[in-house]
Protein backbone atom coordinates (compact mmCIF):
# COMPACT_ATOMS: atom_id res chain seq x y z
CA UNK A 1 0.00 0.00 0.00
CA UNK A 2 2.88 2.34 0.82
CA UNK A 3 4.35 1.72 -2.62
CA UNK A 4 1.09 2.67 -4.24
CA UNK A 5 0.89 5.91 -2.29
CA UNK A 6 4.47 6.66 -3.25
CA UNK A 7 3.69 6.04 -6.89
CA UNK A 8 0.65 8.25 -6.67
CA UNK A 9 2.65 11.01 -5.03
CA UNK A 10 5.34 10.77 -7.74
CA UNK A 11 2.70 10.97 -10.44
CA UNK A 12 1.16 14.04 -8.85
CA UNK A 13 4.60 15.63 -8.49
CA UNK A 14 5.29 15.09 -12.18
CA UNK A 15 1.94 16.59 -13.03
CA UNK A 16 2.66 19.60 -10.83
CA UNK A 17 6.06 20.00 -12.50
CA UNK A 18 4.41 19.89 -15.89
CA UNK A 19 1.99 22.56 -14.74
CA UNK A 20 4.83 24.79 -13.56
CA UNK A 21 6.57 24.26 -16.90
CA UNK A 22 3.43 25.37 -18.69
CA UNK A 23 3.19 28.46 -16.52
CA UNK A 24 6.72 29.62 -17.17
CA UNK A 25 6.14 29.01 -20.88
CA UNK A 26 3.12 31.28 -20.76
CA UNK A 27 4.69 33.96 -18.59
CA UNK A 28 7.86 34.09 -20.68
CA UNK A 29 6.30 34.31 -24.08
CA UNK A 30 2.99 36.08 -23.61
CA UNK A 31 3.74 39.67 -22.67
CA UNK A 32 4.27 43.13 -24.06
CA UNK A 33 7.28 42.98 -26.36
CA UNK A 34 10.05 45.44 -25.58
CA UNK A 35 12.13 45.32 -28.74
CA UNK A 36 14.81 47.78 -27.70
CA UNK A 37 15.85 45.83 -24.65
CA UNK A 38 15.00 42.33 -25.79
CA UNK A 39 16.57 42.26 -29.24
CA UNK A 40 20.23 42.53 -28.17
CA UNK A 41 19.63 39.82 -25.53
CA UNK A 42 18.02 37.64 -28.21
CA UNK A 43 20.96 38.11 -30.57
CA UNK A 44 23.41 37.27 -27.81
CA UNK A 45 21.57 34.03 -27.12
CA UNK A 46 21.52 33.03 -30.78
CA UNK A 47 25.30 33.32 -30.62
CA UNK A 48 25.67 31.13 -27.56
CA UNK A 49 23.10 28.54 -28.53
CA UNK A 50 23.43 28.46 -32.31
CA UNK A 51 26.76 29.72 -33.49
CA UNK A 52 28.69 27.81 -30.87
CA UNK A 53 26.89 24.59 -31.80
CA UNK A 54 27.89 24.92 -35.45
CA UNK A 55 31.09 22.95 -35.22
CA UNK A 56 29.57 19.85 -33.69
CA UNK A 57 26.66 19.98 -36.13
CA UNK A 58 28.81 20.40 -39.22
CA UNK A 59 31.27 17.68 -38.23
CA UNK A 60 28.51 15.24 -37.29
CA UNK A 61 26.55 16.04 -40.43
CA UNK A 62 29.56 15.44 -42.62
CA UNK A 63 30.37 12.09 -41.03
CA UNK A 64 26.80 10.86 -41.01
CA UNK A 65 26.38 11.82 -44.65
CA UNK A 66 29.54 9.97 -45.55
CA UNK A 67 28.51 6.86 -43.62
CA UNK A 68 25.11 6.91 -45.29
CA UNK A 69 26.79 7.09 -48.67
CA UNK A 70 29.06 4.19 -47.85
CA UNK A 71 26.43 1.97 -46.25
CA UNK A 72 23.88 2.87 -48.87
CA UNK A 73 26.16 1.87 -51.67
CA UNK A 74 27.04 -1.41 -49.99
CA UNK A 75 23.40 -2.35 -49.59
CA UNK A 76 22.11 -1.16 -52.95
CA UNK A 77 24.91 -2.61 -55.06
CA UNK A 78 23.50 -6.09 -54.34
CA UNK A 79 20.29 -5.13 -56.14
CA UNK A 80 22.10 -3.34 -58.93
CA UNK A 81 20.48 -0.14 -57.79
CA UNK A 82 23.57 1.71 -56.63
CA UNK A 83 22.48 4.68 -58.74
CA UNK A 84 19.82 5.27 -56.11
CA UNK A 85 22.41 6.13 -53.43
CA UNK A 86 21.79 9.82 -53.94
CA UNK A 87 18.14 9.63 -53.15
CA UNK A 88 18.74 7.31 -50.23
CA UNK A 89 21.20 9.66 -48.59
CA UNK A 90 19.11 12.72 -49.26
CA UNK A 91 15.80 11.29 -48.13
CA UNK A 92 17.17 9.77 -44.93
CA UNK A 93 18.88 13.00 -44.04
CA UNK A 94 16.17 15.46 -44.93
CA UNK A 95 13.25 13.53 -43.53
CA UNK A 96 14.73 11.97 -40.43
CA UNK A 97 18.37 12.27 -39.55
CA UNK A 98 18.84 16.00 -39.92
CA UNK A 99 16.04 17.05 -37.55
CA UNK A 100 16.46 14.19 -35.08
CA UNK A 101 20.25 14.01 -34.77
CA UNK A 102 20.53 17.78 -34.72
CA UNK A 103 17.96 17.90 -31.92
CA UNK A 104 19.76 15.22 -29.91
CA UNK A 105 23.14 16.93 -30.30
CA UNK A 106 21.52 20.24 -29.49
CA UNK A 107 19.98 18.84 -26.33
CA UNK A 108 23.35 17.54 -25.25
CA UNK A 109 25.35 20.67 -26.01
CA UNK A 110 23.10 23.69 -25.87
CA UNK A 111 20.32 22.24 -23.73
CA UNK A 112 22.58 21.19 -20.90
CA UNK A 113 24.45 24.51 -21.09
CA UNK A 114 21.17 26.41 -20.80
CA UNK A 115 20.04 24.36 -17.82
CA UNK A 116 23.35 24.75 -16.02
CA UNK A 117 23.50 28.48 -16.67
CA UNK A 118 19.99 29.18 -15.44
CA UNK A 119 20.39 26.82 -12.50
CA UNK A 120 23.58 28.58 -11.48
CA UNK A 121 21.85 31.94 -11.72
CA UNK A 122 19.20 30.61 -9.41
CA UNK A 123 21.74 29.20 -6.95
CA UNK A 124 23.73 32.43 -6.76
CA UNK A 125 20.51 34.42 -6.23
CA UNK A 126 20.94 36.39 -9.45
CA UNK A 127 17.33 35.62 -10.35
CA UNK A 128 16.17 36.92 -6.96
CA UNK A 129 18.29 40.05 -7.45
CA UNK A 130 16.59 40.71 -10.72
CA UNK A 131 13.21 40.40 -9.09
CA UNK A 132 14.13 42.75 -6.26
CA UNK A 133 15.36 45.35 -8.73
CA UNK A 134 11.98 45.03 -10.39
CA UNK A 135 12.86 43.08 -13.52
CA UNK A 136 10.95 39.90 -14.29
CA UNK A 137 13.60 37.20 -14.73
CA UNK A 138 11.24 35.24 -16.94
CA UNK A 139 11.10 38.06 -19.46
CA UNK A 140 14.73 39.05 -19.26
CA UNK A 141 16.54 35.75 -18.88
CA UNK A 142 14.20 32.98 -20.02
CA UNK A 143 12.33 34.51 -22.96
CA UNK A 144 15.36 35.44 -25.13
CA UNK A 145 16.77 31.95 -24.67
CA UNK A 146 13.43 30.46 -25.64
CA UNK A 147 13.15 32.35 -28.89
CA UNK A 148 16.78 31.72 -29.71
CA UNK A 149 16.44 27.96 -29.31
CA UNK A 150 13.27 28.01 -31.38
CA UNK A 151 15.07 29.73 -34.27
CA UNK A 152 18.43 28.01 -34.03
CA UNK A 153 17.36 24.41 -34.36
CA UNK A 154 15.79 24.65 -37.86
CA UNK A 155 18.83 26.58 -39.05
CA UNK A 156 21.19 23.97 -37.61
CA UNK A 157 19.06 21.19 -39.05
CA UNK A 158 19.18 22.66 -42.56
CA UNK A 159 22.94 23.06 -42.30
CA UNK A 160 23.26 19.47 -41.07
CA UNK A 161 21.22 18.20 -44.02
CA UNK A 162 23.15 20.02 -46.69
CA UNK A 163 26.51 19.15 -45.19
CA UNK A 164 25.40 15.53 -44.95
CA UNK A 165 24.31 15.42 -48.57
CA UNK A 166 27.65 16.91 -49.51
CA UNK A 167 29.44 14.27 -47.46
CA UNK A 168 27.40 11.54 -49.09
CA UNK A 169 28.22 12.94 -52.51
CA UNK A 170 31.95 12.98 -51.80
CA UNK A 171 31.86 9.34 -50.80
CA UNK A 172 29.64 8.22 -53.64
CA UNK A 173 31.02 10.24 -56.49
CA UNK A 174 34.68 10.69 -55.67
CA UNK A 175 35.42 7.41 -53.91
CA UNK A 176 32.90 4.88 -55.13
CA UNK A 177 32.65 6.12 -58.66
CA UNK A 178 28.95 6.77 -59.00
CA UNK A 179 28.26 8.97 -62.02
CA UNK A 180 27.58 12.42 -60.66
CA UNK A 181 24.89 13.21 -63.18
CA UNK A 182 22.66 10.36 -62.10
CA UNK A 183 23.50 10.88 -58.42
CA UNK A 184 22.07 14.39 -58.40
CA UNK A 185 19.34 13.75 -60.95
CA UNK A 186 17.91 10.77 -59.10
CA UNK A 187 18.06 12.71 -55.88
CA UNK A 188 16.32 15.74 -57.29
CA UNK A 189 13.66 13.57 -58.83
CA UNK A 190 12.74 11.84 -55.63
CA UNK A 191 13.14 14.54 -53.00
CA UNK A 192 10.11 16.75 -52.96
CA UNK A 193 10.63 20.19 -51.45
CA UNK A 194 7.24 20.50 -49.81
CA UNK A 195 6.81 16.94 -48.64
CA UNK A 196 10.34 16.20 -47.57
CA UNK A 197 12.40 19.32 -46.94
CA UNK A 198 9.64 21.42 -45.44
CA UNK A 199 8.32 18.59 -43.32
CA UNK A 200 11.83 18.00 -42.03
CA UNK A 201 12.05 21.67 -41.11
CA UNK A 202 8.70 21.57 -39.37
CA UNK A 203 10.02 18.69 -37.29
CA UNK A 204 13.08 20.76 -36.46
CA UNK A 205 10.92 23.66 -35.30
CA UNK A 206 8.87 21.39 -33.06
CA UNK A 207 12.01 19.77 -31.62
CA UNK A 208 13.59 23.18 -31.05
CA UNK A 209 10.57 24.29 -29.10
CA UNK A 210 10.41 21.17 -26.95
CA UNK A 211 14.13 20.86 -26.21
CA UNK A 212 14.47 24.53 -25.30
CA UNK A 213 11.36 24.39 -23.12
CA UNK A 214 12.67 21.39 -21.20
CA UNK A 215 16.17 22.87 -20.83
CA UNK A 216 14.92 26.23 -19.61
CA UNK A 217 12.37 24.76 -17.20
CA UNK A 218 14.83 22.33 -15.61
CA UNK A 219 17.22 25.17 -14.95
CA UNK A 220 14.56 27.45 -13.52
CA UNK A 221 12.99 24.76 -11.36
CA UNK A 222 16.09 23.06 -10.04
CA UNK A 223 17.18 22.75 -6.42
CA UNK A 224 19.73 25.57 -6.08
CA UNK A 225 22.71 23.48 -5.00
CA UNK A 226 25.54 22.05 -7.07
CA UNK A 227 23.96 18.61 -6.78
CA UNK A 228 20.62 20.00 -7.83
CA UNK A 229 22.11 21.64 -10.91
CA UNK A 230 23.84 18.44 -11.90
CA UNK A 231 20.59 16.50 -11.58
CA UNK A 232 18.76 19.12 -13.60
CA UNK A 233 21.29 18.99 -16.43
CA UNK A 234 21.00 15.21 -16.59
CA UNK A 235 17.22 15.46 -16.67
CA UNK A 236 17.37 17.94 -19.50
CA UNK A 237 19.42 15.65 -21.70
CA UNK A 238 17.40 12.54 -20.87
CA UNK A 239 13.92 14.07 -21.12
CA UNK A 240 14.80 16.02 -24.27
CA UNK A 241 16.15 12.96 -26.02
CA UNK A 242 13.11 10.88 -25.14
CA UNK A 243 10.75 13.66 -26.16
CA UNK A 244 12.51 14.16 -29.49
CA UNK A 245 12.40 10.47 -30.35
CA UNK A 246 8.78 10.11 -29.29
CA UNK A 247 7.66 13.20 -31.17
CA UNK A 248 9.63 12.08 -34.19
CA UNK A 249 7.60 8.92 -34.35
CA UNK A 250 4.32 10.82 -34.09
CA UNK A 251 5.33 13.43 -36.63
CA UNK A 252 6.65 10.85 -39.06
CA UNK A 253 3.44 8.88 -38.82
CA UNK A 254 1.39 11.99 -39.47
CA UNK A 255 3.53 13.42 -42.22
CA UNK A 256 4.74 10.39 -44.09
CA UNK A 257 2.28 7.75 -43.02
CA UNK A 258 0.13 7.85 -46.09
CA UNK A 259 2.89 7.67 -48.62
Amino acid at each position, binding site marked *: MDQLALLGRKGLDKLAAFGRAGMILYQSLVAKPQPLVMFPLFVKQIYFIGVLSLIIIVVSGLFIGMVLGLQGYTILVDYGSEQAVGQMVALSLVRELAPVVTALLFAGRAGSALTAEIGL*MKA*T*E*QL*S*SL*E*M*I*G*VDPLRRIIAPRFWAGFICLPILSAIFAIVGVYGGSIVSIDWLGIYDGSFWANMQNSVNFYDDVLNGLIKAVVFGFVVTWIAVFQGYDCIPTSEGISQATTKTVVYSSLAVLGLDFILTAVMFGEL
Partner: protein
Amino acid sequence: MTQFDDVVIDIQKLSFSRGDRPIYNEVDIKIPRGKITAIMGPSGTGKTTLLKLIGGQLKPDSGSIFVDSKNIPALSRSDLFNVRERMGMLFQSGALFTDISVFENVAFPIRVHTDLSEDMIRDVVLMKLHAVGLRGAHDLMPSELSGGMARRVALARAIALDPDIVMYDEPFTGQDPIAMGVLVNLIRRLNHSLGHTSIIVSHDIQETLGIADYIYIIADSKVIASGTPEELSRVESEQVKQFIQGLPDGPVPFHFPANDYEDDLLKGNR
Protein backbone atom coordinates in the same frame (compact mmCIF):
# COMPACT_ATOMS: atom_id res chain seq x y z
CA MET B 1 8.21 46.60 22.88
CA THR B 2 8.66 50.32 22.72
CA GLN B 3 6.50 52.45 20.48
CA PHE B 4 8.27 54.30 17.68
CA ASP B 5 7.61 57.79 16.43
CA ASP B 6 8.07 56.99 12.79
CA VAL B 7 7.46 53.48 11.51
CA VAL B 8 8.39 52.84 7.90
CA ILE B 9 7.56 49.12 7.83
CA ASP B 10 4.61 47.81 9.82
CA ILE B 11 4.18 44.05 9.78
CA GLN B 12 0.93 42.86 11.33
CA LYS B 13 -0.09 39.30 12.19
CA LEU B 14 2.15 37.82 9.53
CA SER B 15 1.75 34.09 8.95
CA PHE B 16 3.79 32.13 6.45
CA SER B 17 4.60 28.46 6.13
CA ARG B 18 6.70 26.50 3.72
CA GLY B 19 4.90 23.26 3.04
CA ASP B 20 3.96 21.90 6.45
CA ARG B 21 6.56 23.90 8.35
CA PRO B 22 5.29 27.14 9.90
CA ILE B 23 7.88 29.86 9.51
CA TYR B 24 5.93 32.75 10.96
CA ASN B 25 2.91 32.54 13.22
CA GLU B 26 1.00 35.84 13.57
CA VAL B 27 4.16 37.88 13.94
CA ASP B 28 4.16 41.65 14.57
CA ILE B 29 7.25 43.65 13.67
CA LYS B 30 7.70 47.42 13.42
CA ILE B 31 10.76 48.86 11.70
CA PRO B 32 11.61 52.46 12.65
CA ARG B 33 12.55 54.92 9.93
CA GLY B 34 16.15 55.95 9.45
CA LYS B 35 17.58 53.50 11.98
CA ILE B 36 19.49 50.25 11.74
CA THR B 37 17.23 47.37 12.75
CA ALA B 38 18.55 43.84 13.09
CA ILE B 39 16.57 40.63 12.71
CA MET B 40 18.36 37.78 14.41
CA GLY B 41 17.79 34.17 15.33
CA PRO B 42 19.14 30.66 14.93
CA SER B 43 19.75 29.30 11.46
CA GLY B 44 16.78 28.17 9.47
CA THR B 45 14.18 30.27 11.26
CA GLY B 46 13.32 32.10 8.07
CA LYS B 47 15.12 35.40 8.42
CA THR B 48 15.88 35.63 4.70
CA THR B 49 12.26 34.74 4.07
CA LEU B 50 11.22 37.86 5.94
CA LEU B 51 13.23 40.05 3.58
CA LYS B 52 11.67 38.30 0.60
CA LEU B 53 8.22 38.88 2.09
CA ILE B 54 8.93 42.58 2.58
CA GLY B 55 10.22 42.85 -0.97
CA GLY B 56 7.15 41.15 -2.37
CA GLN B 57 8.98 38.11 -3.74
CA LEU B 58 6.89 35.84 -1.52
CA LYS B 59 3.28 36.21 -0.49
CA PRO B 60 2.30 35.58 3.14
CA ASP B 61 -0.44 33.12 4.00
CA SER B 62 -2.18 35.85 5.99
CA GLY B 63 -1.43 39.18 7.60
CA SER B 64 -0.21 42.45 6.13
CA ILE B 65 3.10 44.13 5.46
CA PHE B 66 2.75 47.90 5.27
CA VAL B 67 5.66 49.75 3.70
CA ASP B 68 4.92 53.48 3.96
CA SER B 69 1.23 52.60 4.30
CA LYS B 70 1.17 50.40 1.19
CA ASN B 71 0.24 46.79 1.82
CA ILE B 72 2.82 44.85 -0.15
CA PRO B 73 0.93 41.54 -0.73
CA ALA B 74 -2.02 43.48 -2.15
CA LEU B 75 -0.10 45.59 -4.66
CA SER B 76 -0.44 45.27 -8.43
CA ARG B 77 2.60 44.47 -10.56
CA SER B 78 3.21 48.06 -11.60
CA ASP B 79 2.76 49.37 -8.06
CA LEU B 80 5.17 46.73 -6.80
CA PHE B 81 7.63 47.82 -9.48
CA ASN B 82 7.44 51.38 -8.16
CA VAL B 83 7.85 50.30 -4.54
CA ARG B 84 10.92 48.23 -5.44
CA GLU B 85 12.56 51.33 -6.81
CA ARG B 86 12.62 52.54 -3.22
CA MET B 87 14.18 49.33 -1.86
CA GLY B 88 17.70 47.99 -2.20
CA MET B 89 18.78 44.48 -1.25
CA LEU B 90 22.22 43.06 -0.62
CA PHE B 91 22.16 39.29 -0.99
CA GLN B 92 24.34 36.93 0.98
CA SER B 93 26.58 36.04 -1.93
CA GLY B 94 26.52 39.42 -3.59
CA ALA B 95 24.56 37.99 -6.51
CA LEU B 96 26.24 40.16 -9.12
CA PHE B 97 25.27 39.44 -12.69
CA THR B 98 28.22 37.42 -13.89
CA ASP B 99 27.95 38.21 -17.58
CA ILE B 100 28.35 42.00 -17.26
CA SER B 101 31.05 44.26 -15.81
CA VAL B 102 31.08 45.91 -12.38
CA PHE B 103 30.07 49.20 -13.95
CA GLU B 104 27.12 47.64 -15.78
CA ASN B 105 26.02 45.83 -12.61
CA VAL B 106 25.74 49.06 -10.65
CA ALA B 107 24.17 50.85 -13.62
CA PHE B 108 21.55 48.13 -14.04
CA PRO B 109 18.85 49.37 -11.62
CA ILE B 110 19.39 52.91 -12.88
CA ARG B 111 18.76 51.84 -16.44
CA VAL B 112 15.67 49.87 -15.44
CA HIS B 113 13.96 52.57 -13.39
CA THR B 114 15.12 55.84 -14.94
CA ASP B 115 15.74 57.48 -18.29
CA LEU B 116 19.00 59.22 -17.42
CA SER B 117 21.56 60.00 -20.11
CA GLU B 118 24.74 57.96 -20.36
CA ASP B 119 26.81 60.79 -18.90
CA MET B 120 24.59 61.07 -15.86
CA ILE B 121 24.54 57.30 -15.37
CA ARG B 122 28.31 57.24 -15.53
CA ASP B 123 28.54 59.92 -12.86
CA VAL B 124 26.10 58.20 -10.52
CA VAL B 125 27.75 54.80 -10.92
CA LEU B 126 31.22 56.15 -10.25
CA MET B 127 29.93 58.03 -7.21
CA LYS B 128 28.35 54.92 -5.76
CA LEU B 129 31.46 52.86 -6.43
CA HIS B 130 33.54 55.57 -4.80
CA ALA B 131 31.34 55.39 -1.71
CA VAL B 132 32.24 51.72 -1.30
CA GLY B 133 35.85 52.31 -2.28
CA LEU B 134 35.85 50.44 -5.58
CA ARG B 135 35.71 53.21 -8.17
CA GLY B 136 38.95 51.97 -9.75
CA ALA B 137 37.48 48.50 -10.30
CA HIS B 138 34.63 49.61 -12.50
CA ASP B 139 35.92 47.83 -15.60
CA LEU B 140 36.45 44.44 -13.99
CA MET B 141 34.17 41.45 -14.40
CA PRO B 142 32.58 39.89 -11.31
CA SER B 143 34.66 36.76 -11.72
CA GLU B 144 37.78 38.87 -11.21
CA LEU B 145 36.68 40.15 -7.80
CA SER B 146 37.32 38.67 -4.38
CA GLY B 147 34.32 37.76 -2.22
CA GLY B 148 34.56 40.91 -0.12
CA MET B 149 34.92 43.14 -3.16
CA ALA B 150 31.94 41.48 -4.82
CA ARG B 151 29.80 42.24 -1.79
CA ARG B 152 30.85 45.87 -1.82
CA VAL B 153 29.94 46.16 -5.49
CA ALA B 154 26.61 44.55 -4.70
CA LEU B 155 26.16 47.16 -1.98
CA ALA B 156 26.89 49.92 -4.49
CA ARG B 157 24.26 48.39 -6.74
CA ALA B 158 21.77 48.22 -3.87
CA ILE B 159 22.12 51.93 -3.15
CA ALA B 160 22.33 53.02 -6.81
CA LEU B 161 18.88 54.58 -6.73
CA ASP B 162 19.26 56.07 -3.22
CA PRO B 163 16.53 53.82 -1.80
CA ASP B 164 14.62 54.54 1.39
CA ILE B 165 15.08 51.00 2.68
CA VAL B 166 18.23 48.90 2.37
CA MET B 167 18.11 45.24 3.38
CA TYR B 168 21.21 43.21 4.17
CA ASP B 169 20.96 39.42 4.07
CA GLU B 170 23.67 37.91 6.30
CA PRO B 171 26.30 40.49 5.34
CA PHE B 172 28.88 39.36 7.88
CA THR B 173 28.84 35.64 7.20
CA GLY B 174 32.15 34.17 6.19
CA GLN B 175 34.12 37.39 6.00
CA ASP B 176 37.67 37.90 7.15
CA PRO B 177 38.15 40.53 9.91
CA ILE B 178 39.27 43.32 7.60
CA ALA B 179 36.43 42.81 5.14
CA MET B 180 34.04 42.57 8.07
CA GLY B 181 35.32 45.84 9.49
CA VAL B 182 34.98 47.55 6.11
CA LEU B 183 31.43 46.36 5.74
CA VAL B 184 30.32 47.35 9.23
CA ASN B 185 31.85 50.76 8.68
CA LEU B 186 30.11 51.15 5.33
CA ILE B 187 26.70 50.17 6.66
CA ARG B 188 26.94 52.62 9.50
CA ARG B 189 28.32 55.47 7.39
CA LEU B 190 25.81 55.06 4.60
CA ASN B 191 22.96 54.87 7.09
CA HIS B 192 24.00 58.15 8.66
CA SER B 193 24.89 60.05 5.52
CA LEU B 194 22.08 58.86 3.25
CA GLY B 195 19.47 58.66 6.00
CA HIS B 196 17.86 55.46 4.79
CA THR B 197 16.39 52.67 6.91
CA SER B 198 18.64 49.65 7.24
CA ILE B 199 17.44 46.15 8.01
CA ILE B 200 20.14 43.61 8.78
CA VAL B 201 19.43 39.90 8.94
CA SER B 202 22.23 38.10 10.70
CA HIS B 203 23.24 35.58 13.28
CA ASP B 204 26.54 37.22 14.06
CA ILE B 205 26.05 38.55 17.60
CA GLN B 206 29.25 40.54 17.96
CA GLU B 207 29.03 42.72 14.89
CA THR B 208 25.28 43.11 14.87
CA LEU B 209 25.00 44.14 18.53
CA GLY B 210 27.69 46.73 17.88
CA ILE B 211 25.89 48.37 15.00
CA ALA B 212 22.14 47.95 15.47
CA ASP B 213 19.85 50.53 16.99
CA TYR B 214 17.07 48.02 17.56
CA ILE B 215 16.94 44.21 17.47
CA TYR B 216 14.27 41.56 16.96
CA ILE B 217 15.07 37.95 17.88
CA ILE B 218 13.00 35.31 16.10
CA ALA B 219 12.72 31.64 17.04
CA ASP B 220 10.01 28.98 16.79
CA SER B 221 8.07 31.14 14.29
CA LYS B 222 7.58 33.94 16.83
CA VAL B 223 9.40 37.03 18.05
CA ILE B 224 10.88 35.95 21.36
CA ALA B 225 12.53 39.24 22.22
CA SER B 226 13.00 42.76 20.92
CA GLY B 227 14.66 45.95 22.09
CA THR B 228 17.84 47.96 22.00
CA PRO B 229 21.12 46.04 22.41
CA GLU B 230 21.35 47.25 25.97
CA GLU B 231 17.80 46.13 26.85
CA LEU B 232 18.42 42.67 25.37
CA SER B 233 21.54 42.04 27.38
CA ARG B 234 19.37 42.34 30.49
CA VAL B 235 16.59 39.98 29.35
CA GLU B 236 15.80 37.03 31.64
CA SER B 237 14.60 34.43 29.08
CA GLU B 238 16.82 31.35 28.84
CA GLN B 239 16.32 31.13 25.10
CA VAL B 240 17.45 34.70 24.53
CA LYS B 241 20.37 34.34 26.91
CA GLN B 242 21.61 31.20 25.15
CA PHE B 243 21.49 32.96 21.79
CA ILE B 244 23.09 36.21 22.85
CA GLN B 245 25.85 34.60 24.87
CA GLY B 246 26.41 31.86 22.34
CA LEU B 247 26.10 29.06 24.89
CA PRO B 248 26.38 25.59 23.31
CA ASP B 249 23.66 24.05 25.45
CA GLY B 250 20.37 25.40 26.75
CA PRO B 251 16.83 25.51 25.40
CA VAL B 252 18.35 24.57 22.04
CA PRO B 253 20.02 21.29 23.09
CA PHE B 254 23.53 20.22 22.16
CA HIS B 255 22.73 16.51 21.85
CA PHE B 256 20.55 15.30 19.02
CA PRO B 257 17.92 12.95 20.53
CA ALA B 258 19.61 9.54 20.97
CA ASN B 259 19.64 6.40 23.05
CA ASP B 260 21.44 6.07 26.36
CA TYR B 261 25.19 6.60 25.80
CA GLU B 262 26.34 3.57 27.81
CA ASP B 263 23.88 1.26 26.06
CA ASP B 264 25.00 2.46 22.64
CA LEU B 265 28.68 1.79 23.34
CA LEU B 266 28.16 -1.59 24.97
CA LYS B 267 25.81 -2.92 22.31
CA GLY B 268 28.69 -3.03 19.78
CA ASN B 269 27.86 -2.88 16.06
CA ARG B 270 24.42 -1.46 15.82
